[in-house]
């Protein structure tokens, strides 16, 4: 049951999408809130007395105005997107609630990877070579062109290119293509896609809370292997770029005209220290980075989200809420996404070396439902996360890397 006592001086916020962790964070915070979620959540919300408005988030349509109007009538000040699919909804709703039509256009920009890259380029942000593909021929042409540009001769191994869906979160639909033959493996229904040249850099992500157009808190998340593992804060090896990264984020804020909220961009840093922009999302990151941040710093990242969206938040509140980056962290928190390595598995068996490791916290793996493991074509979804926490970032990094060699499903 909701035990919340909220501060009437502060804003009334709407959470778009269903996330129990976000709801609990809101319930423990001092802002009045309401959950906007599909109708399957209704029974649960009723049972536990969670404030709730039913809404099925599909594509925007002519009924979209209805939810904005409903929330406005309820007195809601701002809506917060929790998932990629609700970003454009938040833009549409907030443009009504805050009477700022520009917000909708901004959200659409942040939802389309190709548009987003163009905008970044216009703002003077360095990006790799990219292009939209509508069919397989486009992909083959792009692959050839990129490799010509790199002065490769016939027979030299190609540099790979990356294919991504325009509007999906993280690694969903992400493919790496090296040869024209591999192009045939892409199902037709995946088109159109965004194609990008491969950047031989170190990929990392940033989580930045923005208030009044300024960075309130900036975290750098270090990927050990993309799609497998991440930890926060980053190693000193990556943190040494903090000043440069902060400058990049400020450029991003300016280019995308972001006044409040939260961004989650990805960058590559090449060996000579040049930053390349990958993409940016206007919602909490995957891989439970919010939970990792709470473990490392002790502040609730969802509450930070509420704070940075609420138009009634003061600068003092923001200052008091967020800790000082890196120095205030009690340790390093990381997680690893488990994929079964064998073709046929029958049970979940935590490797003893993992379970007994000093850094090991807990896992959310469940026993396998099916014995045969579907072959992974794209990056796909992991079967669950395992969590670590410890004092040494290098131990953490090597530990996460080492997990890739272990079988969790046998």
């Amino acid at each position: 049951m909701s035990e919340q006592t909220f501060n009437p001086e502060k804003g009334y916020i709407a959470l778009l999408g269903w996330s129990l962790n976000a709801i609990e964070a809101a319930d423990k915070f001092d802002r009045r809130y309401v959950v906007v979620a599909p109708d399957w959540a209704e029974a649960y919300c009723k049972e536990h007395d969670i404030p709730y408005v039913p809404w099925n988030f599909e594509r925007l349509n002519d009924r979209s105005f209805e939810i904005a109007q409903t929330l406005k009538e309820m007195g809601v000040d701002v809506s917060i997107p929790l998932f990629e699919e609700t970003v454009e909804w938040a833009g549409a709703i907030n443009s009504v609630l805050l009477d700022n039509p520009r917000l909708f256009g901004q959200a659409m920009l942040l939802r389309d990877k190709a548009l987003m890259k163009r905008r970044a380029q216009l703002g003077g942000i360095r990006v790799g070579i990219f292009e939209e593909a509508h069919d397989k021929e486009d992909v083959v042409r792009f692959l050839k062109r990129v490799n010509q540009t790199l002065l490769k001769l016939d027979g030299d191994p190609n540099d790979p290119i990356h294919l991504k869906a325009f509007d999906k979160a993280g690694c969903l639909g992400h493919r790496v293509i090296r040869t024209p033959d591999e192009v045939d493996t892409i199902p037709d229904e995946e088109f159109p896609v965004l194609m990008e040249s491969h950047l031989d850099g170190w990929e990392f992500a940033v989580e930045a809370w923005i208030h009044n157009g300024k960075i309130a808190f900036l975290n750098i998340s270090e990927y050990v292997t993309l799609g497998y593992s991440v930890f926060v804060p980053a190693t000193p090896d990556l943190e040494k770029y903090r000043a440069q990264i902060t400058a990049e984020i400020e450029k991003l804020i300016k280019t995308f005209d972001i006044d409040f909220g939260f961004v989650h961009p990805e960058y590559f840093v090449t060996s000579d220290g040049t930053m390349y922009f990958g993409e940016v999302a206007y919602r909490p990151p995957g891989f439970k980075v919010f939970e990792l941040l709470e473990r490392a710093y002790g502040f609730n990242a969802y509450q930070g989200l509420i704070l940075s969206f609420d138009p009634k938040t003061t600068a003092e509140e923001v200052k008091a809420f967020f800790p000082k980056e890196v120095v205030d962290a009690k340790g390093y928190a990381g997680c690893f996404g488990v994929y079964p390595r064998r073709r046929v598995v029958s049970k979940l068996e935590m490797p003893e070396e993992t379970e007994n490791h000093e850094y090991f916290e807990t896992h959310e793996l469940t026993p396998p439902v099916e014995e045969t493991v579907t072959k992974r074509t794209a990056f796909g979804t992991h079967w669950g996360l395992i969590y670590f926490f410890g004092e040494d970032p290098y131990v953490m990094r090597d530990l996460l890397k080492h997990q890739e060699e272990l079988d969790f499903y046998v």
Partner: protein
Amino acid sequence: MSDTDAGNAVPVVNFDKLVQRLDDAIVALAESRPFAKVGKLPRLFDLARRVLLQPGGFAAIQARAEQLEQAGVFTGTDWAEPTILLPYLTTSALQSPNADTVVIEAISELRLLAVANGEYLHPSMASEQAHHYLTQVLAINLSLLFGEQGEAEREQGKLALISRGVIQHVAQEIGYEHVIDRLIDEIWRILQQRPIQVTSVRQMITQIALCRIDPDIDLGGAGQGAERLISSLYGPTQACREDPGILVYEERLQFMDNVALQSEATGFARSMHDTGLVSPYHASFVRHVLEKQDSLLTEALGLSSTGRDCLLCYKELVHALVIEGVFPETAQGLYGLALMLERGILYQPPVAPALWRQVLLNICPEACERIHLAYGHTPQPGAWLIQGVMNMLGQPLGVGQGNNPTCQSARALSMWAYNDPDYLLQMVAWAARDNEIIMHFEGKPVSSVKSEGGVASEITLDLDPVSLVVVPHLDRIYAEMGRLCVDRPGDPHKWVNPEFHGWSAGRGFAINVDVESGNLQDLEGFLRHFYASYHPYYNGNQPLIHPQPAGVAVTDSAARFIGWHAITILRVALDPEEVMRVYFFNPNNDSGQNWGDGVVVSTARKGERFGEASLPFEQFASRLYIYHSDPLERGQPADVGEDELQRVTDRVYDSWGRDRVPADIALQAEPPPSEA
């Protein structure tokens, strides 16, 4: 960059950090909103499980019992209200294969322990109430305290360490005196089945002996009945009453006169036949009199006229068996020797020469290795094997499968020891000397060496010496025979059982489960033919000639299906109360099991011979799913009364057949896996 090397070796658990994490998880749960508590529990249960697996883990959880309960670990479950908890339900919870169930049950027990000790003032349960409850829990879970592992625990794997550990921790805190009398009854109940492997019984008795001499443990009036048990191991006679040690006792033997020796001999024999346990002093005594005056051997073995006759006929062989096989470490073999002589099987022409081969057998390095691992280096492996052979031939129904899913192999060994002793000795010779057994499946040789693998991935060492050496071979052959049947329709036991156990296993085969769907099939026909083949009132009063393999659906005390299990039907007869009973052999280590719905397997006082289990015919029929019969002898389906048939059928439907009802409705489809 650092070159720290993470996680290559299995690291030692940092207990303090682990407990710190548990505390964090408790706080997270406590501070969590009721609607989000469910999401915090998996982490807490996982951490609690890991804490419980560490030394000191039980105490750590006990110390946090109050915080755990107040954080809401039990909220929304039966455990939330301890006054309604029933002690007898703890057994199935602790033996659950589900980690969370075991963990929450363990946390609940430790919470009540904190309440009983006055460390936690519980709002609804008084300290005395908690104490009383835990006493009952201990008594009901005695098998977890010292006993043998059963099927359920075998399925549990590492979780069983928590189940056992929590009961042991509670016993230490509550005090053994509260359970000791129950334990003594339990030991007698097991000993009445005369198992060959008595390691765990010895452990239990030693535990009691230790409790009795520990000045910190006040047993009060409890434990008086342990005297006979303790003395049977540590001082069965006048000259070793105070457990002086083997060397001192052997010195005393040098100076004993005839009367004293006579009295020692009868003392040993009485104790041995009373309990089925043999004291190491007994072995020293027998070796001593063998050198000086072997007339005392008959007395020391407690033989009847049959046994004495046999001993006199085969005196040299018996001497050789004692000299080569009976040492203080292998003293238990004396009981086997005595019973083997009583059975008169030495009069079967091949048995004595086969035993001579056994005495002189060269044992291959592989078999030596297994015996060394299980029993240590003294005496020689050959002596252990002789002990094992004597025990198996003397106590064919004392064979146990240990902690292995090898009920088929254990059953075969028992059947041969009972029915075909020289064949058993042949198997032992092949396995121990040649490290290979070849059996034939429908004319095709099946070698234990060339087989791909057995039912069990690894055979544990908690076995008698014969099983230890022979079972790995038999298990592989059994599995291989199963593989040869994969493309045949129906249950492979139909072909495997007669080929594996020998010609005397009936070629007729009946099963009441459809292998494809897992549903019951033709239950009535199955039962009528069973009555016609086995029930003396329906088969022309023909006693069973050869022991027959059969399969039962084992159920737990709540009558829920656990698994398929291989047994031997030995005989069907009226018990002292004129109830028709099936007497059978269960290769499980303890046959006395509660199969639920009133079906409690008896092991004594219902006309059972040592090692036999029994059930009234109807109850037995209700758990049976496979039997063999002679297709030429079986006549018409028995004209069993409708009432009786209905009672049996109801019992099937109320227990393991619950989800196997053959109907148009699709139900659970699970083909019977191989028996364990």
